[in-house]
Structure formats: C-alpha cells, structure tokens
C-alpha cells in the first residue's frame, strides 16, 4: 500500500502560550511538537506498510520550523517527505489546507491517506474529511482499527459513549485516526541517521496558489476565555492545602 500521512506541527502540550500584542494569534516563540493524533496516524501507516509492503510518505504545510516533524517521521521509518513550506500556509482555513495538500500530491497514486482526527491548536477536525471531498474518495473518521481486505479496508469506528461500528470501504480512501489506536514507537539512532538521507520535496506557496480560494471564515479575535465559575484557589504548603481542602470536603461538600 502506498500511504500518505498528513501531519501538523503544533505548540507543545504544556508550553505556556501568550497572546500576541494585536490579540490575533499566539506569540510564536514557543516549543513545538507533532500533533498527537497525527503521530498515531503515522504509526498506523508504518504498521500497515510492515504488514503489506509499500511506501509511507509524510506531508505537512507550514513554515520552515515545521520541517522538524517531517524529520522525526522519516527517522521513525517514513520513506520520504513533502513540505508545503511557507508561513502563509498557517493562515489557511481547513478547506484551503486540504486543497494545498491535494495540489501537492497531484500525479501520485496513493491507496490510502491517513491523518489525526483533529489538531491540538485549531481543533476543527475537518482537514481529512475535506481532503476526501476534494479527491472524490470515500472517507471515515475517528478510526481505531484498520484491516486490509481483498476489496479495500475493514475499519473500526469509535462512536460516542462506548459504542463502536465496523465499516467496509474500497481504496483509495481517507481515514482520520483516533489517538490510542496503537502504541507509538520511538525513533532509533540508526533511523535518525538514515532520515538525513531520505528525500524531502519542497512545495512553494506559488506552486499551489492557483488551487486555493479565498478563506470563507475569519478569526476576528483570540482571547483568554471568560471564566464560567468562581474558583476558590487554595494556597500554602502541601499539608496546609490538604488541611483546607479536607475542611471544605467535610463542611461544604460533605463527603467526609
């Protein structure tokens, strides 16, 4: 199977984020990492390749720094990478991101495209589904199991509140992957070394611009959310905090 994995670089989970002065975006001087569900999508692609042979290609859209997530994917075993490299890719809405990816892979014949079910920054949960519409392929979301069959793939979908569903679909298809579908691997030293030799194709904004259209939604402002509740913050040494909390649990919550 020839598999494309769409991954994204996002701020690290516990990175302290600050608003920029204009209140339009975060300050970019933070640490970044690969979006977690995308890491599971990559792992799944590598496992499918190990079972059925083929090729794993990773793609991302973003500024120069986002090359890091492609390097890591190559070190884990992806065969080659495509980088849609430009600051402007970060400002695209999901539809245009999907269009840019579709334009960058034109002429390649993938059997499967996988990506995480949503990103930790925007959290729109749309790019994978939109890519399927652009390519004209079937898709399925929130996948927690993939089994290749003679006619396509047999998939396990997660539904809400502990419900599941199996579905069958032909290839090529686009799947969005749920975290926890597998166990992530670490890159090996040899893998990191080999990654440096693997091909990375750069695609400029100009090369795909004709395929994009005007963004149809706009972020007017970004802000720290207004608190919904009045939180009582307890301070002091751990034993002091414990004492205050126990008093509260005893007198107000009445569980002790």
């Amino acid at each position, binding site marked *: 199977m020839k598999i494309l994995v769409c991954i994204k670089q996002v701020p690290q989970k516990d990175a302290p*984020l600050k608003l920029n002065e204009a209140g339009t975006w975060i300050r970019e001087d933070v640490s970044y990492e690969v979006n977690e569900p995308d890491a599971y999508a990559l792992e799944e692609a590598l496992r499918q390749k190990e079972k059925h042979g083929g090729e794993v290609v990773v793609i991302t859209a973003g500024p120069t720094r986002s090359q890091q997530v492609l390097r890591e994917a190559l070190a884990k075993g992806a065969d080659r990478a495509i980088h849609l490299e430009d600051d402007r890719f970060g400002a695209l809405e999901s539809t245009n991101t999907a269009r840019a990816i579709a334009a960058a892979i034109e002429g390649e014949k993938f059997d499967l495209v996988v990506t995480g079910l949503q990103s930790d920054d925007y959290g729109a949960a749309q790019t994978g*589904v939109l890519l399927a519409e652009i390519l004209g392929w*079937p898709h399925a979301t929130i996948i927690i199991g993939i089994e290749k069959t003679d006619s396509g793939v047999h998939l396990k979908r997660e*539904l809400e*509140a502990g419900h599941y569903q199996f579905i069958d679909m032909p290839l090529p298809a686009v799947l969005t992957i749920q975290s926890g579908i597998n166990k992530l691997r670490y890159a090996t030293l040899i893998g990191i070394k080999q990654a440096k030799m693997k091909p990375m194709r750069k695609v400029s904004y100009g090369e795909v611009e004709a395929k994009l259209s005007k963004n149809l939604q706009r*972020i007017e402002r970004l802000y720290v959310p207004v608190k919904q509740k009045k939180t009582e913050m307890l301070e002091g040494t751990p034993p002091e905090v414990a004492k205050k909390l126990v008093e509260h649990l005893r007198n107000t919550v009445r569980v002790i």
Partner: protein
Amino acid sequence: MADCILVVAEHREGKLNRASFETIAGAQAISKETGWAVEVVVVGEGLDAVIAELATKIVSRVYAIEAAALAAYTSDAYVYALKNFVSTKQPKLVLFPHTYQVRDFAPRLALALDRTLISDAIGYKFESGKLLFSRQMFQGKFAADVSFAGDPPWLVTFQIGAFRGDLAEPGSAPTEKVTAAVAEGAPRVTPHEVFQEAKQAVDLSQAAIIIAVGRGIKEQKNVAIAENLAAALGGELAASRPICDNGWLPLERQVGSSGQTVAPKLYIAIGISGAIQHIVGMKGARTIVAINKDAEAPIFEIADIGVVGNLFDIVPALTAEIVKVKAGT
C-alpha cells in the same frame, strides 16, 4: 422565501439524540436576535416518532428526509440528501450538534455546497448586525470569535453542552416528509451494526465520588497515588483519555466524550489539563476540585476549588489528612 435557520437533528436507529434539543435552543436564541425562523430537518428512514418529538418545540416546521438508502448512516448518502435539500431551501444558517456523526459528514457537506463550516462552536455573538461564533482554541487555553467571510448558507456545529436542551422552548410545529435525493449507483461504503463492547463492569455514572488522573501523573506506577486517595475517600478511580490510551487504566474508567459521562457529588481532577473532550464528560459534577501544576490549565475554568502545585506532594498530603480526620471521627 423567508430567511431561516435550519437545525439538522440527529437520531440513531429512530431514537432522537438529545443534543438535537441543545442545537434547537441555540437556534431559538439566535432567532430572537436575527428574526430568522427556525426549521428542523432530520435524515433517515421511518422517522415518524423522531419528527413528532422534534415538533414539540417552538419551530416553524420539522422536515423528515426519508429514503431506504438512509436507513443506516453513511456520509455519502447524508451529504447527497442534505446538499440537495439545503441548496433548494437556501437557509441563512445551518446548525448541527457537534456529534461524532456530524464531524463525519458536515465538513464534506459544506464543501459540496461550496461553503465553509465553523466547527465545535461554544456560543455566538451578534455584533452590529454580524454573527460571530465563539470556539475554543489550543485545547481550551484560548477562545476565538470567528465570522463568515462568504455568502450564506453558513454552517456551524455546536459543542455538546453549549446550550441547554431543556431550555428549548416548547411549542407545536407542523411536520413534513420530503423524499430524499439518492445518488445513482452502488454505495461505496458498507456500514455494519453499531455495538457496545462487553458490558462495562464499572458504571462511573452512578459514583458519588470520582478521583480522576490525567497526563500529569507521568508514569503508570504513580497512578497508585490517586488510587490511595480514592480508597481514603471511598471513591471510584477514573482517567482522561491519554491514561487509558497508554493502558495504565482500563478503557472502562475513561471519562469524556469517547468514554463515560459522569455527574458525581465530588470530582477531583489530578494532573488533568482539561481538554474539551474530557470536560464534556464531567462538567456536570456538583463540586470540581482541580490539582494541576499549570495555573493556566483550562481545568481551572470550570473548577470550584483549585490547587496550583506539584501533585506528587499535594495528593499524598491530602490522603494522609483524610485518613487522619476519618480516624479521629
């Protein structure tokens, strides 16, 4: 045709998803500002009971789009039928509950209509004649107000719990059945039955006290720290998704959109940052205590009592204090 807001309600095998009422409540609120009528549509087969239930709210009309091909959900059939209906009807707004099913087809529907979808909104604002939709960003650390830059219909999904379904105003609406547009040719996707894995042994929804651990616990062996607190309080142990993904606690102890929804008297969140997917499963708790090293963690947005600090110091101290107090009484 009068301007309208179209709510796409959801059902599973003819049973209405209650989140549909939340979206209707949201639509009613927007309607009061814009003057646009609220209409509801539901897609499937054999929907008599579903539309009868939806018609008990103040809306102008409830439509059932029916066809045999829509009996079991597939994104292809839903997108085809709804694209046809929405293009004919040309509503200003199309609203959905942000369910797993909606996430599966709504982006595709928006693009098929050559429009865009604002997903997972938690509210709206109506500012000088312009509708803005608020959504969480960066896992709830920030919020953004988002506007539409193109022509209607504008598509929006609302996060579960964004509006109160029980506040959807009651009324009596006419219903209408519409024959669905069905694509020619064989369907691409074959869906099988929806099922639950072996009956869950732990029913957290009935627990009065829940001690939940998240990523901040760092290692599997540290889960014992929370276990000791749960034992001291007589509570159930629960976890956010990453803990179950790692196999540190069984999936049946997961709280959140993909796990259980709980409403205990007391919920102690230990090392849980408060990602949206977790919060939707526990925000109904009467008292929420959050212990986290990051003062900016979104969990503090909904906590009644907060402690910023090292859980590895605070939780054992708390357990010791509880044991001491209980022994003394």
